[in-house]
């Protein structure tokens, strides 16, 4: 009983956490991106990269909820922000405190490291809590090649296999990626995709690198594959069906040969001597 209760509580905390991360991204994309970016410069409003390091979280919650209330109340910081941004009013947001905090968390997670702006934190590379079915589906389509990479790079499936239900059996020239996520970690996969250490892969993607969102989707797909990989050797089934269909093709070829055989002169010119 005690174990079940603990499990339920843990599950609820986890679920709440996942929901918060997910809703943070969703809310940010829906309500904030028109005026703000995270590390991509100022739009109508300021760039919010590392905003949590220069502003108090409680103040941010109040400002996001209703910036006008703070300005009207004479909050000096709010007034200066308002004036710095050409006195454009930020609309009040009908969000509760949990939702606002999830947005702040999302901004924090996705902000570049100020000490090393090119270095991304593991959470920025991949955050299991923030991936959705859409990421996994897009990752699968990119992996299989049914959706092309934006810059035209070759799909992963031509060299790599992933054992997963409903995923087309991949090539066997390079490593099987069914457990790549456990073996390499998200950061490892990210690094290999962006700057491949293998010459064949480097040749393929040097001029046609993947976009950030594509890398994220591929990692999401490999994460899912890692979770669902049952260890069944699906490759053997493909090998058998490959041979079976080839046998069918061979039959067609030999039927054609036999058909043609009927009208071939079987005895050579000098055989009757």
């Amino acid at each position, binding site marked *: 009983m005690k174990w079940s209760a603990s499990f339920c509580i843990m599950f609820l905390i986890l679920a709440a956490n996942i929901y918060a991360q997910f809703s943070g991204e969703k809310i940010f994309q829906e309500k904030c991106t028109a005026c703000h970016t995270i590390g991509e410069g100022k739009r109508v409003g300021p760039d919010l990269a590392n905003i949590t390091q220069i502003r108090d979280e409680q103040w941010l919650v109040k400002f996001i909820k209703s910036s006008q209330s703070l300005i009207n109340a004479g909050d000096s910081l709010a007034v200066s922000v308002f004036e710095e941004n050409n006195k454009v009013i930020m609309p009040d947001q009908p969000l509760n405190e949990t939702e606002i905090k999830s947005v702040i968390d999302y901004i924090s997670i996705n902000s570049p490291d100020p000490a090393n702006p090119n270095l991304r934190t593991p959470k920025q590379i991949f955050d299991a809590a923030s991936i959705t079915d859409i990421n996994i589906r897009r990752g699968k389509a990119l992996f299989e090649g049914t959706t092309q990479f934006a810059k035209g790079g070759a799909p992963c499936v031509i060299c790599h296999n992933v054992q997963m239900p409903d995923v087309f059996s*991949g090539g*066997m020239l390079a490593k099987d990626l069914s457990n790549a996520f456990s073996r390499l970690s998200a950061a490892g996969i990210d690094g290999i995709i962006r700057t491949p250490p293998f010459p*064949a892969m480097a*040749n393929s993607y040097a001029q046609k690198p993947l976009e950030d969102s594509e890398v994220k989707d591929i990692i999401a797909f490999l994460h899912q594959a890692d979770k669902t990989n049952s260890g069944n050797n699906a490759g053997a089934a493909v*090998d058998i069906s490959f041979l079976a269909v080839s046998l069918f093709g061979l039959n067609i070829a030999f039927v054609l040969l036999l058909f043609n055989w009927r009208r071939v002169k079987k*005895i050579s010119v000098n055989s009757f001597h």
Partner: protein
Amino acid sequence: MNAYNVIFFVALPYAALLMFLVGTIYRYKATKFKFSSLSSQFLETRKLYWGSVPFHWGILFLFFGHLTAFLLPSSILAWNQQPVRLMILEVSAFAGGVVTLFGLIGLFYRRLVDARLRKVTSIIDIVLEALLITEIFLGLWIAFGFRWGSSWFATVLSPYLKSIFTFSPNIDAVVMLPFVIQLHIILAFIIFLIIPFTRLVHVLVYPLSYLWRPYQKVIWYWDRKKVRDPQTSWTMHKPQNN
């Protein structure tokens, strides 16, 4: 860069191309009459059919498949974008390979067991057929063991071959490939290298001009159907006037 890699993947291809070019031109000029397959059809027909026909159908299919992947890699990748189309291509290529191997083994057997053929067989014929059998066997091994070769050929081998033809060889990717694939590539260059000294030169003198030459009117002066009856020997002779 390993010296062997440079020898096999840079020096050998250039040696093969040079030998192919100079050797075929020289041989065409020097021994024009022998610039052919030196057909042995008159010596034996029955085994020839089951060797020659599947071999030629198969090898043409495989050769032009490789050529397309080299010249138009993006077209192959575009075709392979749908798994069903990829399967169709791979299975056809594999079946084509088996048909070719079947035919070639038939030809090899025919050349070894037929007393008449042994008289017109040189060592280079045996070497060439053995090389071709090995090459096709390796190709089948690759198609099965390192599947989706049609796609990775386009991304790995096409750039390598292009780098050879543009005189800026880049062998980084090739040296990392499995040994079976490397051997397939090396043997292909060796086959190209010996082409000028073999019956294979006949690929260069395919009578394409027959496609547009004026037709020839043939008037049969004897019973054509009887002569062409596949079940009988050539028992009839053309009537003599004198």
